[in-house]
């Protein structure tokens, strides 16, 4: 089966700086693919290249059987986009936003109006149909943006940080809807820097940094390939001093961040026995997760 989206060796530079540097991605129908990376890793630029909004400096892109950017217009007929920043039309009501957006795809008014009730139902916004956009909460705006991206019944959805800035209730509702979409057979490409989001939603994901994909696979594979199975977090004022003296005896790898020592290991029992005899230290023993992988691969320093 041919790929829904295929990118080979994508390149893009701004002012001599390589923002996207040799990205290869191939998406199969019905899968949810996550692009993870710190701010400035090149995620949004990669999405804009895939949509044909900017010209790549090199590489090859095929979206839904159309060469991009040359035939991006045809490809975008079957694409939905949830952008990072809300850009709903503030002058219009919820339903008018969907109507006006559907027209951009060349849809007839009666065709769009026939879809609106189901879209509003999906977005849990049926009761807000005639409400103007500025009075909606952040979560409602995101849901409306998602409904708007579905107005043309797309084959593939691009979501750029779909839950950034939302409260937990709103995030969970969006996750549920995105999961429903994959069940319906839609292909999803999302960027995020929330690891729980990626772990929960994505069949496959890639970690991106400095314009390159540095690791790719299912969430479990990524954890297994890149990091030890267990983590013991040691807290307390003497944690750093303790870690430098003792952690290496027990852990395959450790990192100190402020008053916390992160110990990565495959068998935590000897370390826990040792820690129980230490006063002034508390600890948390947990399985390794995607966030550990992410921090290992992209480092702990701030990206600003």
């Amino acid at each position, binding site marked *: 089966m041919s790929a829904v989206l295929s990118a080979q060796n994508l390149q893009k530079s701004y002012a001599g700086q390589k923002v996207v540097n040799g990205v290869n991605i191939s998406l199969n129908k019905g899968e949810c693919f996550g692009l993870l990376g710190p701010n400035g890793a090149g995620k949004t630029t990669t999405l804009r290249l895939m949509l044909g909004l*900017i010209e790549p400096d090199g590489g090859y892109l095929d979206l839904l059987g159309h060469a991009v950017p040359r035939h991006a217009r045809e490809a975008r*007929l079957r694409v939905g986009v949830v952008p990072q920043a809300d850009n709903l*039309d*503030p002058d*219009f009501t919820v339903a008018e936003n969907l109507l006006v957006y559907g027209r*951009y795809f060349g849809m007839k008014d009666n065709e769009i109006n026939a879809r609106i009730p189901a879209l509003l139902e999906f977005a849990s916004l049926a009761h807000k149909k005639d409400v103007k956009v500025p009075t909606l909460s952040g979560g409602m705006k995101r849901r409306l943006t998602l409904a708007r991206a579905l107005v043309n019944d797309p084959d593939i959805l691009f979501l750029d940080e779909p839950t950034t800035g939302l409260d937990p209730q709103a995030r969970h509702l969006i996750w549920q809807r995105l999961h429903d979409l994959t069940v319906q057979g839609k292909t999803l490409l999302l960027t995020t820097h929330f690891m729980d989001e990626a772990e929960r939603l994505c069949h496959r994901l890639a970690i991106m940094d400095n314009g390159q994909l540095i690791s790719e696979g299912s969430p479990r594979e990524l954890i297994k390939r890149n990091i030890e199975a267990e983590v013991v977090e040691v807290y307390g004022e003497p944690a750093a001093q303790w870690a430098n003296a003792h952690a290496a005896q027990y852990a395959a790898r450790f990192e100190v961040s402020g008053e916390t020592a992160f110990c990565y290991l495959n068998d935590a029992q000897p370390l826990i026995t040792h820690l129980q005899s230490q006063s002034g230290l508390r600890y948390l023993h947990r399985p390794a997760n995607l966030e550990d992988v992410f921090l290992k691969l992209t480092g702990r320093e701030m990206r600003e």
Partner: protein
Amino acid sequence: MSAHHYALPRLSFRFFPIWRRHFMVWRKIAATSVLGHIADPMIYLLGLGYGLGSLLPEMGGTSYIVFLAAGTICYSTMNSASFEALYSSFARMHEQRTWDAIMNTPVTLDDIVLSEILWAATKSLMSGTAVLAVATLLGLTHSFLSLWLIPLALLIGLCFASLGLIMTALAPAYDFFMYYFTLAVTPMMLLCGVFFPITQLPPFWQGVAQALPLTHAVNIARPLIIGYVPDGLMLHVAVLLGFTLCGFYVSLVLFRRRLAK
């Protein structure tokens, strides 16, 4: 900066849903908008036309208020297109990010810029027609030739919308537009024969006036109001069309550069 920024516009009928969007927004605020577009030029026309006009002799073979009516229609159409292409287009591009939302659909930037020009020209058409209607009711037009001011309002609108969008493409913020209004729009109002014939200007400034699009708009409008076909009609139309096409192309190149980030 790459070569595709300089490509000729690739146009399609997909501009039309955007024009419809603008019209839908306008309908919601039409009452205040119409008042603004008619009230301001009418105050000038009546105040200066009857007030100042009563002190003046005939001008160009007609009463001052008829002379002024043609100028008023031209500058009010220039103003409405300019305001729309600067402030409103900037809001849609920069503040509301409406353009970003639209570009994620099969609509391209070329379609968007075309629709912005056509919408601003539509606003000109509306305000030009409204002022013409009032002038006709006041008995200031003298033949059916004055109906040609309706398509002329559209052409003036296209011209100033295209020129205005160049500023929009360059603007870092709204404050920037003050330069354009102070250094371009207001001087044109005074140099281009709106309030007095350009023959009153020193020779140098007469030459400058000949290079400005508003002069050519007024040169078409005034004879039509008085009741005869303008001399050099084709030249004046060609100048307005030339500014329109250049403005469209230059603004499109600048928008491509600005938004290719």
